[in-house]
């Protein structure tokens, strides 16, 4: 140790170690290995694997590899606890969540030190960010438990939830999963990541310590195989997953058609947009918080820095200078900025991607890092939009720097990604920053800040970053279900429709051609085939176009072109919907006789038309009222939760209620600003095709509603496969549901699937806020203020 006199000259920081002693003692007490936490107690350790501390490479614990039998035991415990847990009053559940929050605060330093040792993140971050957010999450959701009965009337818990979390924020992700699930009345089986299972086990010990009713929280450790066992378990009602997009896709496919609810919080490649009028020093600090926070192992890391060409040189110089002051090393040292990469496997992946980037022409500016499982803070320039470093999620301390010219250019670059998790926008101009925030496709937008979190705001992505929200009111919906219709007695699998002549009888009156409706124009089907539409007793009514995949392609194209609809005011959309009602009412008789012609009674037909008109009014009324919220988060922050349309939604309509089924699905979607490609009732499409004239006369802009008739499941398959479709509502057969969910994994579009025969569209279950929730996604925009 140098003398104090020498230190006065060098003014070095010197070591500032956080003592690991208490945690080490605890780990030593479990030297035989940890079991799972099932049904209120720890099991004996089974077949174990090593947990290492990435900073030292030392083995710090052994945990049990969860078998299918372990998962099954955990699910059984969760199942038998669920009824009782849900039957508790909200207040009683609130007290349990409150107790968890309190205990987490009481054990705060223990948890922070354990997290740092297990994960490699700097103690400052575990201590000042992760653990306080964990406690905050449980407090916030103690509040939701208290209020759930009144704040979410009619909603019920989903049941038993299987939850799989990543290694980057082990305890925080546990909190994000468990707190809302428990508040809503669910019980859980949670699997922590294999690299970082220890704080979950410490949390289990806390559950034991407070005497949480057994079976409510179950924790099973293990690797991907254990995760698979959870995903595949028949008695789990919902899977919540945070992790890579790749695994998210596998889970989407694995759960397809099983009836399991699903929320996914996946990867990102978030843009960090710096305009010329920004406080550049502030933006530089923002980069530090964006990409050198948690070693860049953050799903919402601002990994793509986009900077206005006019200030790029100055910004780059400031950023490089700032990088020289980052301290990389021992995570337990209180002066460390960047700790260890979680595991040598991840380090190898970072190295590989960066090497690939360099081979593609990227230039690197790097800080320094000690030997071992560390990687230096890295800034890559010379990266084009097509480069590996610009498109692949690196999950390491590597940012790319690219310039843009104009706001339009910035938006184009920002949205040039398959992901849509988060974005950060830096500008002192409120008009500019809010305009950019509204145009960026991401679930979270931070203005003049980055990586700011609070339990009161929703977090979650657009596009291939997943669906569902965590935190806030919107996050509670991920663990609640509005009871749907009673299960249908039969499958909605309509008979086949051979598109060949000679199958029906003669048509009465002048022969009419029901074409497809694409981009506001009637189009003949691309294939040139038609299929017969018949009365329920078999008499011919006419022909409908037999649309094919190219028609779907054209319809999606047209829907994309009508993007102005989403930007229109709710009032404008309402006016159009009222106009649709007006014109529909004016032709009520014609529509009723059309429905009668399918075989419905006169009374039923009239009722269906009348209900369709009412539904237009109801969604017109909602168009400017189903709005977002301003969340209570941090002081001097406005956190806006905006409801945004998904974009282009495919809608496969049920066979029954040929008019009302169509109207009940298409209207909420367009009321919220979506454009739709709808497949009408396969058997009776003519009620929907008659609507062309209503839409045409009601000022519905071309491309907002596109209608392709034909074989429902065939067309739905094309929609499910289509990467330009953002959501897909499918009301049809069991096989069709499995197909749609399976194929939606491609771009991870949000799907909503139901048996087409289940819902009685003439009743109240045919309309409601649940349709509007499905038609929107929440974007949280954070705006700090102060001068």
């Amino acid at each position, binding site marked *: 140790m140098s003398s104090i006199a020498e230190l006065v000259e060098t003014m070095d920081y010197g070591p500032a170690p956080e003592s690991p002693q208490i945690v080490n003692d605890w780990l030593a007490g479990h030297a035989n290995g940890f079991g799972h936490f099932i049904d209120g107690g720890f099991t004996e350790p089974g077949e174990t694997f090593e947990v290492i501390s990435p900073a030292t490479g030392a083995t710090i614990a052994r945990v049990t590899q969860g078998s299918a039998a372990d998962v099954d035991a955990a699910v059984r415990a969760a199942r038998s606890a669920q009824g009782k847990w849900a039957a508790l009053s909200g207040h009683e559940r609130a007290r349990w969540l409150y107790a968890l929050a309190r205990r987490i605060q009481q054990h705060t330093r223990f948890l922070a030190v354990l997290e740092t040792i297990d994960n490699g993140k700097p103690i400052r971050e575990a201590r*000042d960010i992760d653990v306080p957010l964990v406690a905050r999450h449980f407090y916030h959701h103690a509040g939701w438990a208290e209020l759930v009965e009144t704040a979410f009337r009619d909603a019920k818990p989903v049941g038993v939830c299987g939850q799989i979390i990543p290694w980057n924020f082990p305890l925080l992700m546990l909190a994000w999963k468990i707190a809302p699930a428990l508040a809503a009345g669910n019980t859980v089986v949670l699997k922590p990541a294999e690299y970082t299972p220890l704080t979950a086990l410490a949390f289990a010990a806390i559950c034991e310590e407070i005497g949480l009713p057994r079976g409510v929280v179950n924790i099973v450790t293990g690797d991907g195989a254990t995760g698979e066992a959870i995903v595949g378990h028949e008695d789990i009602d919902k899977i919540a997953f945070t992790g890579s997009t790749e695994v998210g896709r596998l889970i989407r496919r694995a759960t397809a058609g099983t009836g399991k609810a699903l929320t996914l919080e996946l990867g990102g490649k978030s843009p960090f947009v710096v305009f010329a009028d920004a406080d550049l*020093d502030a*933006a530089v600090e923002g980069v530090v918080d964006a990409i050198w926070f948690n070693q860049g192992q953050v799903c919402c890391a601002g990994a793509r820095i986009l900077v206005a060409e006019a200030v790029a040189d100055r910004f780059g110089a400031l950023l490089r200078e700032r990088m020289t002051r980052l301290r990389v090393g021992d995570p337990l040292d*209180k002066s460390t900025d960047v700790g260890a990469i979680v595991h040598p496997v991840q380090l190898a992946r970072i190295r590989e991607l960066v090497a690939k980037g360099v081979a593609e022409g990227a230039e690197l500016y790097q800080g320094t890092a000690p030997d071992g499982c560390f990687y230096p803070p890295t800034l890559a320039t010379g990266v084009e939009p097509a480069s590996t470093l610009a498109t692949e999620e690196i999950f390491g301390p590597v940012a790319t720097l690219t310039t843009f010219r104009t706001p339009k250019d910035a938006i184009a670059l920002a949205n040039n990604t398959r992901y849509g998790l988060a974005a950060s926008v830096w500008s002192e101009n409120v008009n500019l920053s809010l305009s950019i925030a509204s145009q960026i496709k991401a679930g979270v937008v931070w203005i*003049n800040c980055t990586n700011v979190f609070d339990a009161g705001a929703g977090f979650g992505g657009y596009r291939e970053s997943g669906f569902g929200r965590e935190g806030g009111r919107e996050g509670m919906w991920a663990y609640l279900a509005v009871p749907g219709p009673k299960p249908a007695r039969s499958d909605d699998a309509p008979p086949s429709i051979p598109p060949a002549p000679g199958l029906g009888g003669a048509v009465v009156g002048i022969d009419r051609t029901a074409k497809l409706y694409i981009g506001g124009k009637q189009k003949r089907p691309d294939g040139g085939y038609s299929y017969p539409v018949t009365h329920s007793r078999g008499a011919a009514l006419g022909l409908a176009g037999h649309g094919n995949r190219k028609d779907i392609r054209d319809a999606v194209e047209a829907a994309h072109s009508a993007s102005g609809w989403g930007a229109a005011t709710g009032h404008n959309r309402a006016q159009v919907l009222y106009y649709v009602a007006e014109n529909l009412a004016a032709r009520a008789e014609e529509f009723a006789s059309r429905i009668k012609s399918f075989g419905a009674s006169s009374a039923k037909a009239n009722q269906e038309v009348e209900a369709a008109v009412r539904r237009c009014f109801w969604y017109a009324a909602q168009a400017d009222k189903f709005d977002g919220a301003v969340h209570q988060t941090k002081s001097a922050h406005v956190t806006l939760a905006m409801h945004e349309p998904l974009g282009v939604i495919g809608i496969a309509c049920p066979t029954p209620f040929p008019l009302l089924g169509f109207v009940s699905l298409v209207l909420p979607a367009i009321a919220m600003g979506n454009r739709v490609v709808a497949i009408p009732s396969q058997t009776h499409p003519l009620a929907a095709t008659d609507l062309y004239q209503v839409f045409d006369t009601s000022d519905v802009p071309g491309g907002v509603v596109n209608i392709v008739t034909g074989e429902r499941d065939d067309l739905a398959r094309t929609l499910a496969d289509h990467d330009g479709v953002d959501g897909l509502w499918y009301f049809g057969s069991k096989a069709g549901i499995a197909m749609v969910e399976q194929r939606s994994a491609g771009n991870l579009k949000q799907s909503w699937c139901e048996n087409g025969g289940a819902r009685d569209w003439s009743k109240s279950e045919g309309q409601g806020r649940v349709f509007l929730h499905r038609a929107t996604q929440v974007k949280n925009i954070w705006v700090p203020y102060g001068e």
Partner: protein
Amino acid sequence: MSHKAQSAPDSGPALVTAQPVAAHGRNDRRNPGMALAPEMFEGHAVNRSAAERRAETIVKRRSVKKESQAAWLINAIRCMDLTTLAGDDTAGRVHRLCAKARRPLAPHLAEALGIAGMGLTVGAVCVYPTMVAHAVAALEGTSIPVASVATGFPAGLMPLKLRLEEIGYAVGEGAHEIDIVITREHVLTRDWSALYDEVAAMREACGHAHLKAILATGDLETLRNVYAASMVAMQAGADFIKTSTGKEGVNATLPVSLIMVRALRDYGLETGHKVGFKPAGGMKTAKDALAWQILMKEELGNDWLTPKLFRFGASSMLADIERQLEHHVTGRYSAGHRHALA
């Protein structure tokens, strides 16, 4: 932001060039100033929320413990303008302060800390003009400079002629450093040339004495004002920029300090000149001493951890530092009455 330096005698790409060291705690390559250049600060964005976030976390990102902490606290003493600016100041009071300035630590503590041979003193003694002569007499034989406030301290609302005469008086009494106050009105009304002319005239009146420009940031309120006022003061030739008189409602804070040090960094990048920084008022604890030094090291580097370029304007901070240093030596918590009064 892009602008050209109007005078850059030794402009280089970076701030840092080695400089000869002469008298105690003086930056002998003084900032000569430059013509008023509003493009260096007008429209310069300062985001308060981000500044507050940085200020809040900067002190949590670094921790200084044990020997290092002792060294940092000793350095804080070295960089301290030990101050008395009260209506009841007397010759006796100033003598006592100067005695403390000469020997800020009890000899047994200096011995135990292994710095007895360092000749540790504070950076300067800061008094009112009429107390300068007493201070100069009391510090005779040391190299501790005497700083005097002037220019109608603290409000500064006296005719300019009188303010300049006051500087002349203090310099004549033997002050080596003059802590002037700016006319806040010039900032609030954005009359940059009036502010520039005023500070330039004061600099001229200082002669060989160094000028510290007190911006009274609590009165300026916004960080954009703070940045602009800092820049004008430096362009007019200030050797130091200083946050506060200690008499405003809000005195030295970390966010304000952050913006001032960024302004002086930007000025240095543009002109190649190093300007000093002096936070003053409201800093009372050893913890504050560490926080501001961390800020200087992180934002500017070690050059700004010497009395040539960094001073604390504080009166009660020393007492807390002494207690912490005694704790370091003995391992027992100390009490204030064990240490000599300032």
